[in-house]
């Protein structure tokens, strides 16, 4: 039996126990900057997400936790429509960003991705200079009219990503010459440079050492004041440290979602409890 073939109605029920999400429809959009309703994802014939509904409020960090393969990354990729680039992938349901359905025909996925930035598990800077890495986004979107403006954007993005001091004197060095933690902050700077509203992070620290991880966590906490951040993490401690809201995914559905304190101190579902206490996953 595959995990996907579970009866999904029960998950839907538990997911909707989150009080803030009780009301359905457009009023939900008011709750979150990004609001997903009944999102299902299929890879070919295989269903990876089952009617996921989740609100991700602005100026907060929402953590997605759950065992491997439960669909966290899949859900994250729905929010910037990266699933569009996977052949055979199909997304059902509604995802509202600022009151607008991102899967609407009128929404251009390329422009959407400028509004919804993404940071990946493995740092993936372009094999170009540090400057070029950050400048690329603003340049293709025409955010800067001249070189000074572009340099300003690069500088402020690197500053906000907490990397400026370390790279100010070697902006022309290749981005790949940085350490893993620095690369990940460079990638965050690259995402920030196109002035996104939402930043998605898919296990951004899992390839990093504890010190680099601490720096990224600090950075996420800083960025929270300006963005809606959604982060996938395998570390319960990290979710507890950086997030205000947490959603527990299991077998392609949201079992439980709510305030992080609540989830960690008083989980309502036994599966959540088992997972956060390390009994499975």
């Amino acid at each position, binding site marked *: 039996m595959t995990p996907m073939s579970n009866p999904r109605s029960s998950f839907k029920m538990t997911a909707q126990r989150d009080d803030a999400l009780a009301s359905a429809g457009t009023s939900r959009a008011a709750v979150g900057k990004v609001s997903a309703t009944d999102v299902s994802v299929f890879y070919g014939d295989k269903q990876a997400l089952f009617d996921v509904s989740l609100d991700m409020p602005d100026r907060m960090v929402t953590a997605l936790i759950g065992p491997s393969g439960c669909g966290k990354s899949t859900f994250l990729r729905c929010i*910037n429509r*990266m699933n569009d*680039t996977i*052949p055979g992938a199909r997304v059902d349901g509604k995802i509202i960003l600022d009151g607008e359905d991102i899967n609407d025909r009128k929404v251009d996925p*390329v*422009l*959407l*991705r*400028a509004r919804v*930035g*993404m940071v*990946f598990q*493995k740092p*993936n*800077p*372009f*094999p170009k200079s540090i400057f070029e890495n950050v400048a*690329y*986004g603003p340049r*293709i*979107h025409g955010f800067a009219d001249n070189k000074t403006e572009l340099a300003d954007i690069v500088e402020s993005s690197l500053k906000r990503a907490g990397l400026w001091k370390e790279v100010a004197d070697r902006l022309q060095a290749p981005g*790949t010459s940085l350490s893993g933690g620095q690369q990940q902050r460079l*990638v965050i700077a*690259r*995402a920030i*440079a*196109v002035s996104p509203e939402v930043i998605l992070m898919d296990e951004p620290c899992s390839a990093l050492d504890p010190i680099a991880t601490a720096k990224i966590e600090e950075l996420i906490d800083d960025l929270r004041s300006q963005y809606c951040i959604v982060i996938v993490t395998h570390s319960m401690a990290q979710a507890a440290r950086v997030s205000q809201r947490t959603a527990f995914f299991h077998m392609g559905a949201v079992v439980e979602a709510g305030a992080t304190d609540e989830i960690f101190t008083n989980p309502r579902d036994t599966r959540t409890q088992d997972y956060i206490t390390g009994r499975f996953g």
Partner: protein
Amino acid sequence: MTDAALTPAQSAKARARAESEARLKRRYRAEARFRFYGRAAIILALAFLVLLLGRIGLQGYSTFTDYRVSLPVQVNADRVDMADLGGSNFNLTVAESALALLGETDDPYGEASAEMMAILSGDMGFQILDRLREDPSLVGQTITVQGPMKANASLYYKGQISRDTEVGGRLLSDRQLDWLDELRERGVVSGGFNWTFLSRSDSTEPEQAGVWGAVVGSAMMLFVTAMLAAPIGVLAATYLEEFAPKNRWTDIIEVNINNLAAVPSIIYGLLGLAVFINWLAVPRSSPLLGGLVLALMSLPTIIIATRSALRAVPPSIREAALAVGASRTQTVFHHVLPLAMPGMMTGVILSLAHALGETAPLLMIGMVSFVPGVPETLTSAATVLPVQIFIWENASERAFHERTAAAIIVLLVFMVLMNLVAVLVRRRFERRW
């Protein structure tokens, strides 16, 4: 110590150790065996390579020296018909001057001068003709002309024909050999680098034949091939790899491209014959025609090489570009193609090098004619290096065989250069990520 003295536990341990030692020995033996096979294979391959190159080198190196004679020629007015300069027999004039130099005179039957003409190249006669056309006042004077010896005479100087060779095999009489010796003693003959071979085109006379026309023909043909096959191949591969939906149609196309890469090249010649000559009426024997056929032949290889270069670009780079809001096209042109460039360029250069040496399809489209000049346009008649080699190999004169090997050397030099460029391109553009 005997077995009896050991406890069962000790003997079990000893057995285990003996077994593990035996296993270790077997492993070492297996490794040594494999190393030996590997080295033997490499040595064998190298031996064949040395044999091949050595043979070609030994046969061809002598082409790169030739012997030239410089003669004072008395241009007698009675031999020159100013009204019909081209009709005058200047070769006879040259031969008579050479005989005079050696203190001999022609016999009534003209046998001596005929034999002399057979060791001096007709090139000198043309030189006199040219100079008289420019300056008719030279008639009646003595002018110095310098030109090559006939190929057989050169072979004698190079030691490839000697007095011991039977007369039928050397094609030179004893009298001619005496003259050759005497000319050399008088210091009018000098050996040097054979520029003629590198600067002239094909000729019926081996001593006047060169590879320049074929080199230019090859370059023109390769230019056509590169201009067509490289952009089309790279774009097709990029579309197939990065943009095309993955479905049954693209699968069929992929399988067919792989099949086309395995089609014998002579089939492309047939195709060229049917399509380009009979249907599109492209001029026969032209670099354009050869280039078109070779472009068709190189396309599948270039597409396959480009696709594998594109596939080697990590998907994380594509994700990174898409995630900052680059379109599909921007992602491909700004990030993927630059990273795939070294692999693509290497593939293109190697398949062009392959095309440079291709002969069979060119023979099929009739590119096997005697072309004495250097091609001026893409549509003029031309010959190319491998075909020139083929033509000379089939020539009967001994001196042409020497030139066959030398032309092979020239072709190999170009191949090595192209491979070198491929290596340099790869080194230069290689980036890590």
